[in-house]
């Protein structure tokens, strides 16, 4: 009987050892659990820039990829996708980071192919701002519009938002706008800070926090929202965008 018990124990432990890594050790390339796209939260469409469908696609023609430098197109794809719009009008395909990155690359808006940037990396954009992706004419052509104001248009390295500007931002989100934010010191989930672009979903001036959809954070969870303190965040630009 002891042998039988031992056998059952061995089987149990084997099953655990086989399944557990694939469930929790996400660095393992054999894992088949993919959450690169979420479409079930009040219709906001979340895209992860790491997703293998596009993550390894070249983005700037100099060896960089959507994974490494595509936070801009991924954030824009979220906005387009949320409104079920296409990056290429008439194509009938809802925008993805891949299709947006292709457009940006063609227009010379990718990370380093032109003078502008898809990400807010201060080194990549040499202190300029990611204006390309908030270009009014292009936005209009794809069915989006931007507000006249740029809440944090102070340039690189960006400004820490005052309470009054937080309230301004809150007024926009409460009025149906998303805020496309370029931030020079985004707190990376793995430590340190990075230049980054995210979509701001909610602003809380009293708590001094924002809730965002970041294309590089919470990629493996259906709860993609991340709330961060704005006390030390440096916003290069913060542009209200919604559908026309």
């Amino acid at each position, binding site marked *: 009987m002891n042998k039988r018990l031992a056998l059952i124990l061995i089987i149990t432990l084997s099953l655990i050892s086989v399944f557990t890594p694939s*469930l929790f050790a996400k*660095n393992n390339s054999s894992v088949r659990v993919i*959450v690169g796209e979420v479409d079930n939260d009040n219709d906001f469409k979340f895209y992860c820039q*790491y997703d293998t469908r596009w993550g390894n696609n070249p983005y700037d023609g100099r060896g*960089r990829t959507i994974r490494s430098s595509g936070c801009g197109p991924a954030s824009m794809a979220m906005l387009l996708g949320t409104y079920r719009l296409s990056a290429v009008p008439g194509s009938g395909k809802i925008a993805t980071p891949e299709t947006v990155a292709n457009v940006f690359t063609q227009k010379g808006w990718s990370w380093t192919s*032109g003078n502008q940037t898809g990400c807010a990396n201060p080194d990549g954009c040499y202190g300029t701002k990611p204006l390309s992706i908030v270009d009014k004419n292009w936005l209009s052509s794809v069915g989006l519009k931007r507000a006249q*104001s740029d809440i944090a248009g102070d*340039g690189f390295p960006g400004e820490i938002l005052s309470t009054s500007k937080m309230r301004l931002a809150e007024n926009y989100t409460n009025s149906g706008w998303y805020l496309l934010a370029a931030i020079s010191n985004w707190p990376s989930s793995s430590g340190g800070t*990075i230049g980054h672009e995210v979509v701001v979903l909610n602003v809380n001036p009293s708590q001094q926090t924002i809730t965002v959809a970041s294309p590089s954070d919470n990629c493996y969870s259906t709860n993609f929202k991340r709330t961060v303190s704005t006390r030390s965040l440096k916003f290069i630009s913060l542009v209200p965008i919604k559908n026309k």
Partner: protein
Amino acid sequence: MKNRAVLILIVTLVIITIILIALALFPSRNKESVNPNTPLPTPTTIEIVIPTPSDLNKEAISTVTYSTQAAKLNQKAFLLANLILLLPYQGNLFSLTYDFETDSFSLTLNSQSAIEAKEEFERFLNQNGIQNSLWLENIITSYK
């Protein structure tokens, strides 16, 4: 007693198996799971590539040009945000409001002193860095 131990072990095994299967199936709500053979992206920190000095030199000229244009465009949008912070504003001869939902301004001028009201409005804009009232798009003007 032994039978009870075996029973407990079997039940435990079944529960663990069910939990593991449930956990494995959990992400299938995601659209990506339609194609289970797609390999997983390896999460890493975002690579920040710092340009070498030679990279900087290569793009320096065009960057300067762009920066100037970008600065002008963004400066305008930035100043408009600062203006919106002051609204609603009531002057002596005019009032200005902003509607967040429609991204539009409403200007009301004193009809009895329309010219002076417009001048006061322009001065107000200038004081706040707005060089020209044409910077304000979607402006609805009325007289009262």
